């Protein structure tokens, strides 16, 4: 059995150590907010935080996490930065189909936690790993700036 600290709660489950966190979250724990997009860390839909750092959960073996804190889209709203990012996302109506937005919001929250006043180049660097097929990028950039003003 493996125990992880996810969104401040201790979760114990049975999964092989090499199983990516993504599938533990989605298929074992039923936390479907974190999305599967590519399986090779190319699209960012599966982004979660490990001790506050953005990580692609589709390639992260669950056995490598230990007692580090896992934060997912279901829990990021409990952090002040996460809540402000979610609010900015809704204020500017960033979201279209929404499938990639869990990952976008997680990447943006991690950026703002480490860089409260990001320049455009910081946004490019932090967000270029997150693909959006609906093309919401223009509003993502605006929303990060909006959230930065309020963080």
């Amino acid at each position, binding site marked *: 059995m493996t125990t992880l600290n996810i969104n401040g709660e201790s979760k114990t489950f049975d999964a092989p150590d090499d199983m*990516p966190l993504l599938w*533990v979250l989605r298929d074992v724990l039923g936390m479907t907010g974190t999305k599967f*997009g590519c399986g090779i860390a190319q*699209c960012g839909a599966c982004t979660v935080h490990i001790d506050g750092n953005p990580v692609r959960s589709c390639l992260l073996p669950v056995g490598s996490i230990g007692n580090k804190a896992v934060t997912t889209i279901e829990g990021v709203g409990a952090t002040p930065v996460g809540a402000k990012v979610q609010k900015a996302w809704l204020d500017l*109506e960033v*979201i279209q189909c*929404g499938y990639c937005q869990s990952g976008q919001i997680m990447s943006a929250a991690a950026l703002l936690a480490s860089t409260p006043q990001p320049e455009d180049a910081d946004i490019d660097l932090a967000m270029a790993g*997150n693909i959006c097929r609906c093309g919401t990028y223009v509003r993502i950039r605006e929303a990060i700036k909006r959230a930065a003003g309020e963080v």
Partner: protein
Amino acid sequence: MHRSENSASLPSRRAVLKSSLAAGFTLAFYLPVRAANEPEQTPDTTAGQFAPNAFIRIDHTGKTTLVMPQVEMGQGVYTAIPMILAEELDADFSKVELKNAPPNEKLYANPMLGVQATGNSNSVRAFWKPLRQAGAATRAMLMQAAAQQWQVDPASCTAANSVVTHAASGRSIGYGDLVDAAAALPVPQDPPLKNPKDFTLIGKPLKRLDTPKKSNGSAIYGIDAMLPGMKFATLAACPVFGGKVAKVDDTAAKAVPGVHQIVVLDDVVAVVGDHMWAAKKGLDALKITWDEGPNAKISSADIWADLRAASKKDGVVAKSVGDLAKGLAQGERFDAEYELPFLAHATMEPMNCTVHVTPDSCEVWIGTQTISRVQQYAAKAAGLPLEKVTVHQHLLGGGFGRRLEWDMAESAVRIGKQVDGPVKVVWTREEDVQHDIYRPVYRNVISATLSDGKIAAWKYRVSGSSVMARWLPAGGYKNGIDIDAVDSAVDMPYDIPNKQIEYVRAEPPAVPTGFWRGVGPNNNVFAVESFMDELARKAGKDPIDFRRGMLDGNPRLKAALDLVAEKSGWGQPLPARVGRGVCVQPSFASFIATVVEAEVDEHGEVHLRRVTSAVDTGIAVNPDIIVAQLQGGLIFGLTAALWGEITIENGRVQQSNFNDYRMLRIDEVPTIDIHVMKSSEDPGGIGETGATAGPPALRNAIYAATGIALRRLPIDRKALALANKA
């Protein structure tokens, strides 16, 4: 019941029910088993509710439920449709609840498509009038019920926020208290609609109803369906189109922890496990020998050779104006050919479908653009009558036409038939890219003559697959003409005295073809607008002036062109190797002009600097969603123009994932300015409008920056590199 003069001659409630049924309107009970995690997915029911039509249900507490005949895939219909219904109903918009329509062609067929499907940017266009009528009729019944109760003239009552008020006597009553009396009234057949100047919701940038749950991970897409006891599966189809399974050695796969079952179908192998990881590891461990079949040698080179040959023959004439031969004999003649590649859709949510098949039932959980087709093909695959198949509609993690198909449901049911209990079948991204139903390759052959700086004759032949002949043969494919393949060619906006548009149906071998965001206009707008720029240069004219001179017959488009010229800084000086390109199009009944500004560097790499669009899309139901759709649609189209191409070698798709099927990313996105013009015309379509506008405008910007006339997408960086210039 107290009877007023008005109701004295009304038919009985029973007669009303009978006539409603005869008219095909609701009251059918639809009570499938409810999924474990689907709070939003409960079936539509009219039990105990005032349900005068297919779209509106009001219960005794006043709770108003709106049934969505079109599906939400990001384009905002779960906000626009409620706005239209609530507008005419005068319902309290902050309290409406939404439900997905069940599969029911009679009640929910798209009036423009004739089938229950969401596509062709027509949700608002097609349902604009029916929804307004449904709202207005319901409101009229509620007002009449209130007036009856108060014994006043209905015309002396007003309605707002789900309350009817009689100002003269200071009385008011909520819709919930009127439902029984209203249900006894006949449904007005031609209720008066609001004057647009009285709209209180339509035209406002109201917040979307679907986005709060999408911001915190609680929105449920098809891929998120979870059922008690569910298993997880992933699959492999033969990598060669049309190939079959010859032999499967599953020894190693069965030894993978968590793997339960290997399902071998004639063309697909699936591994069923405790979770996707077990299924995927199991699939990787399978040794499958494929019978690759007759397509094993097909390559892109063959497909293009075939298409080029086909495009040289005469096509079926789809439109003819004036005297083409006479026109072609006037002035100077120019010829060009434009080619577009296969494209995959690559929705962010990979193909998936969850099923529970038993000997006498089949339940399906999916996000689909075509729920009734999913039901039909699931029934066929399950070997069950239609009424035994329940389909639960979910949010779509992107559609773009891919989810107008039902293949993912069909294969899931075939797999599910062999699995005990519910199973979620999820495709890997590689499977999703390599077994898409692709945007066809197209080739357009154009000849035109110029006389006095204007086009005297235009001969245009589009050659390519007919998606309609497969998908909607009745109505979509007539007398050898695919109405989608010639869309935006037969109705090109320019005043040209002599023209002929032809279609050559040319099906590529092996590769399945389908609709892709922008559909036929994607191809035709690219070819028409690219050639317009080349002709402008031949005529020695500015590209905007050249177009404007032929747009007298299309004032809405001309106005959009004038606005975009002003807003884009057209004509202002630019650095070397930076250019502006323009595109105009009347596609999807929206009139849009777009200017792309781009730089071509010494290596031939193209950098987007700025995009400006001006659009007259008629009444803008929700202007902010229109802006969002254009921002996103432009990026979708520009992505394809910059990188999109699926190639075939040995019968296989060569691309596999986002590493080799490239998407535009945030650091490559330019400033995008959208100007939505005031209009009192009926709404136009907007979901695909940007997708078709981006590529030709970019291509023309490159032409302006370098003088190189690209005639094929995606753009050829080698051709644009400075070293390659003579």
